[in-house]
């Protein structure tokens, strides 16, 4: 168990090499992969999120921790999948139509991937129709929409309207974020959630799962 505690520390410190080695070691010692994820990896990412909230960590630390987490999950997920365990949830993510900015979207995708979610990244300048088709095909639990520009924010509303028209609005929870977006705007356009940071997005998604 001491080794597993070290695994948590490796994730928090963003030490991807150590995280992989400790994960491999734990799996060799027949520790239940589900226990590794639930009791050590996720609490480590929660700690990273907490440090982010109190200004101890910033985006660079978030990213290297998420990268270390991803490395561990690459060893664990195939085992879970072969046992028939499902991932935490599936997220379709993209920057809305008219907007070519992807830094914020990529940050959120990395953090959610680090938290164990399966990410389907549709890229930038994604039309409402493309989002609708992807949701029909991939059946995700969440749809995450990003916009950096004030002028492209309305594409978030158009996307939600397109989901309604296609009769699939209630099949997904819609999350929105980006520099000009506010919780008030999220409410106005009928989104299910809003986060002002990539770290907050993980907590938001988890809170909407229960």
């Amino acid at each position: 168990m001491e080794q597993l505690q070290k695994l948590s520390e490796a994730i928090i410190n963003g030490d991807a090499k150590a995280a992989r080695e400790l994960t491999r070691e734990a799996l060799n010692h027949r520790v239940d992969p589900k226990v590794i994820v639930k009791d050590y990896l996720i609490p480590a990412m929660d700690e990273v999120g907490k440090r982010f909230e109190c200004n101890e960590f910033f985006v660079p630390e978030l990213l290297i921790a998420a990268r270390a987490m991803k490395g561990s999950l690459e060893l664990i997920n195939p085992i879970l999948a072969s046992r028939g365990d499902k991932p935490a949830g599936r997220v379709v993510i993209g920057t809305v139509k008219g907007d070519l900015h992807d830094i914020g979207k990529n940050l959120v995708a990395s953090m959610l991937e680090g938290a164990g979610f399966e990410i389907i990244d549709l890229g930038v300048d994604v039309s409402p129709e493309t989002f609708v088709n992807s949701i029909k095909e991939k059946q995700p639990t969440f749809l995450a929409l990003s916009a950096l520009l004030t002028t492209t924010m309305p594409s978030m509303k158009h996307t939600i309207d397109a989901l309604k028209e296609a009769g699939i609005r209630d099949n997904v929870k819609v999350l929105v974020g980006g520099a000009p977006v506010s919780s008030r705007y999220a409410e106005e356009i009928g989104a299910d959630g809003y986060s002002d940071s990539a770290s907050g997005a993980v907590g938001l998604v988890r809170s909407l799962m229960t």
Partner: protein
Amino acid sequence: MHSTLQEIVALRPVITDGAWGTQFQTKGLPQGACPDQLNLTKPEWVEQVARSYIDAGSNIILTNTFGANSIILEKHGLREKTFDINRAGASISKAAAAAKAFVFGSIGPSGKMLLMGEVTEDALKDAFSEQATGLAEGGADAIIVETMSDLEEAKIALASAKATGLPVFVSMVFDSGKDKDRTLMGTTIEDAASVLEEAGADGIGANCGSGIESYVPVARRLRASTKLPVWIKPNAGMPEIVDGKIIYTITPSAFASHAKTIIDAGVDFIGGCCGTDPAYIESLVHLK
């Protein structure tokens, strides 16, 4: 201090300009289209926006080149036009200024993160050098590297722009952390100022990110951290949706009253970022 810069700083408080992108949208630029391309395809629109700020009383106007680096232009299939778009942007602003104002060539971020390995330092250097050379060739009096979230990228842009021999200002976005006083990467105002001063910046600033009301402490801290001229361009508050339209609710006169406090904090250059237009600049001119 560079002689042109000395002349500009003497106008203190120096009034800069407001937003450009939204002005093009009202003229009919479609959503998602490249505004920088207008320098070649609709130069008359660009000149109208430039002149609207000259008429409002700006001492400095920027250029319509914020996203005109080869990394962004490539996404629009315009990579080979990089130099031409920048040269045209500078010469349009220069013509509109008609010797009544100075022109600062605008260099914005690449939109790619060094840390994520999305772009290399060399690729950034090439992109910013080409852009800066075009701006200098078009007659810019100085260069403003603006809206930067990553100090590393800002330093590369600064060094590339300095190679033109023009004075170069660098303006960062401080909108992260619980007090919204760090860059996205976690850099403090004080660290940004000292690193940029050391790296040879001729002026240091903050722009975009948040509304003007939160800029007073940022301005004070920047002023206390550097001997260089300080440049501030806040947004007109946070956008809100009224009757399905996106508007900025702060009025030009409320904007100017915050700006007065910012100028009193010792800031040399003041203007507006997202959500501001010539009416906001006019209200700043009245402070002089």
